[in-house]
């Protein structure tokens, strides 16, 4: 068995006054590598140990401001550069609106990074392999005693002198602290069977759960993007009405808007007599009439309604609409032809709305007049 390696000499004290005094003396004697351990921070100890004020506040300041800056750049870039949208008439880059989140991120960065810096860089934690752990000394100072220790590596360290000094200061107990043999010779074993096994298990669990979530769970109700909804689907029986449909047939005699049945079926004379054109030949109405005429009538009747069919004899060519007969017809009579067709000409009631029919008629009137223009029309 090799000789134990000494880490430090330590002493336990009873009262806060004694420990302050001890710390002061040790510091004055010129020891550098010593430490005081107390169950709670004792007032005035920093001064007694000749410690300066902690500088960790700078970390908070720097990273807090980093948070502010991160927030501004993030929001500014997203709102004003990458995808600018006007929201409520506010400017793309509106500092007042960014205020709350700037503040929150400053606090978040400041607080979290300060704590991380404290633990990792200032205190060098986590560290569970320090020699004082699990010693009688540690067990006392974490409860009700006040301890001081001087490390063996301190240039002024001398076993007997230190012991005498502690005695003189009124120590209740003096304890040497040794390095733990096991901890010193400990080597991390990455290829340890247990560790590898652990990694394999973690990998298996992770991949299984990711697979399960992405491929199974997300396709289950209610996670399945609303694939299942409480609505009626065509071709499926429904429970809403007795007859198994979701909609009832309309009441007998119901007429849809704009689909009033034609009053003068098979009565061209009556139509000629009673139907009155409600549309004025305004520019707008004539434009509408022209469009509709060119689409629906011109293939047979020609663009000028002169009977020059574009159907190349595949369909009997209609007579010209500039005949005296048609010119003397009332608008109502032409309307009747559109509604019912005439001999081989089919009905165009379904293609044209009521307004469009009258507009087409107005346009035919224009064509007729231009073919039979009087001198007065030129003025």
């Amino acid at each position: 068995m090799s000789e134990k390696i000494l880490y430090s000499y330590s002493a336990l004290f009873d009262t806060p006054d004694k420990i302050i005094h001890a710390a002061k003396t040790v510091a004055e004697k010129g020891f550098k590598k010593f430490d005081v351990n107390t169950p709670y921070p004792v007032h005035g100890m920093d001064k007694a140990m000749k410690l300066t004020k902690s500088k960790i506040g700078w970390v908070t300041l720097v990273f807090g401001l980093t948070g502010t800056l991160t927030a501004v750049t993030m929001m500014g870039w997203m709102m004003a550069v990458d995808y600018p949208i006007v929201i409520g008439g506010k400017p793309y880059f509106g500092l007042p609106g960014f205020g709350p989140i700037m503040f929150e991120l400053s606090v978040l960065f400041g607080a979290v990074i300060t704590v991380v810096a404290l633990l990792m860089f200032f205190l060098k934690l986590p560290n569970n392999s320090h020699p004082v752990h699990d010693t009688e000394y540690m067990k006392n100072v974490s409860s009700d005693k006040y301890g001081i220790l001087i490390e063996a590596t301190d240039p002024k360290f001398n076993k007997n002198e230190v012991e005498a000094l502690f005695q003189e200061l009124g120590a209740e107990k003096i304890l040497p602290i040794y390095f733990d043999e096991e901890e010193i010779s400990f080597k991390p074993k990455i290829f340890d069977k247990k560790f590898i096994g652990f990694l394999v298990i973690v990998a298996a669990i992770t991949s299984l759960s990711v697979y399960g979530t992405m491929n199974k769970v997300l396709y289950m109700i209610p996670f399945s993007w609303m694939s299942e909804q409480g609505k009626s689907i065509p071709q499926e029986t429904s429970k809403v009405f007795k007859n198994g449909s979701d909609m009832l047939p309309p009441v007998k005699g119901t007429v849809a808007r704009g689909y009033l049945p034609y009053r003068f079926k098979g009565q061209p004379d009556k139509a000629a007599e009673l139907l009155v054109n409600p549309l004025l030949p305004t520019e707008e109405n004539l434009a509408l009439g022209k469009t509709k005429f060119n689409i629906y009538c011109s293939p047979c009747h020609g663009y000028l309604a002169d009977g020059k069919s574009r159907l190349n004899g595949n369909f009997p060519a209609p007579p010209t609409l500039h005949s005296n007969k048609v010119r003397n017809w009332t608008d109502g009579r032409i309307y009747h032809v559109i509604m019912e067709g005439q001999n081989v000409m089919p009905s165009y009631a379904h293609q044209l709305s009521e307004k469009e029919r009258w507009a087409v008629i107005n346009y035919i009137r224009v064509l007729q007049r231009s073919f039979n223009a009087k001198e007065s029309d030129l003025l």
Partner: protein
Amino acid sequence: MSNNEFTQELSVIEGKPSLRSLDEIISKPLDTKPDKKYYIALGVTLTMLTIGAVALAYSFYYGIGLWGNNNPVGWAWPIVNFVFWIGIGHAGTLISAILFLFRQKWRTGIARFAEGMTIFAVITAMIFPIIHTGRPWVAAVYLLPYPSQHSLWVNFYSPLLWDVFAVSTYFTVSFTFWYVGLIPDFASLRDRTKSKVKKIIYSITSLGWRHSNRHWRHYEMVYLILAGLATPLVLSVHTVVSFDFAVAQLPGWHSTIFPPYFVAGAVFSGFAMVQNVLIFIRKIFNYEHIITLDTLEKMNKIILLTGSMVGYAYTMEFFIAWYSGVPTEMFTFVNRAFGDYSWAYWIMFSCNVFIPQLFWFKKIRRTIPIMFVIAVFVNVGMWFERFVITVTSLSRDFLPSSWAYFKPTIVDGALLLGSFGLFFTLVLLFTKSLPVISIAEVKGVVDGSQPSHGEH
């Protein structure tokens, strides 16, 4: 009698207990097996939690149409509960951070517990806005700025988004603060436990803390900094929550008094809740000398103060409504007090404004059963305050043709019950798994624990 008497600090821990006895009494709940009463209490809270969980599962499966939310009142109970629970959390930070900055030593006995309650309350609160989206598993996608396929970002001008940042920051910072406070206590527990498993757990959680003064030096500074950061943070959180309302144009919401009024209300209800729970804790675990009657009295004073502030806000809202000359605004307030929801308004008003005034009497401030009942009333009243603000304004907005009366459903009720279940389950588990009083801090304020200054 010398003048010194006035500057002498009163002891905040009664009877000068020895440091080791403090260790013992504080870690006792962790070392002993829970008794029957504990299991009964846990059974009750877990039942409540289960009822809430079932209601939640139903809501996810069938959709949130199961709730009472209707067309004008789209915000109903989920938001009421959210604001209520966030408010409960505020007391913890006030006690741990603001009172720390003001060097109020009496806070040490209750700070850890109050901070714990903050964390649990914020967890409970965060559930509500998220489930209000109906599909919480995709909610994160809508709440956080992340590079999406649509290349669209969240709207940073929306108070709802500010809320996302405020609440999540609040949670993170509170949790960090809490954990930093726990480190030395974990170390003390590590050094006294006899169980092997516990030893490993505490070794990990204490990070190998050594109570070294070279560490305390930085540690204390960080504690101060965190308190300094948490103080404006806690004020900002409820301010931002109030923006959710105040930035909207709805009559009864669009008002500049909201931020301070909400913060005062939050502290008010939070203190009431902390006081309620502490009354049990100190009795059950024999902490009467650490959480003293003086401490409770001081808490009652804060309840009285913030309650009066809230009362002032209620009356001032009426005055401003009248003074503004805006007919819809005036109508809203008359409607609150005398309309369909007047019952809720008067419950709120009497619980929050009239009843806490009893705390003017010292006798009442120091009688435990009475103060307990008053604090219960305060919590009921504060829940109704959020109800009144949210529901009355929405149900009677600018357009009379869209007015509608809001009625909660049984699922709403189950969710509220479940939220209490969750909160108290966490509190109960906390009392048995972590030291509910900060061991290191309490030791530092026991009489005679600090060096006497006689020697210089």
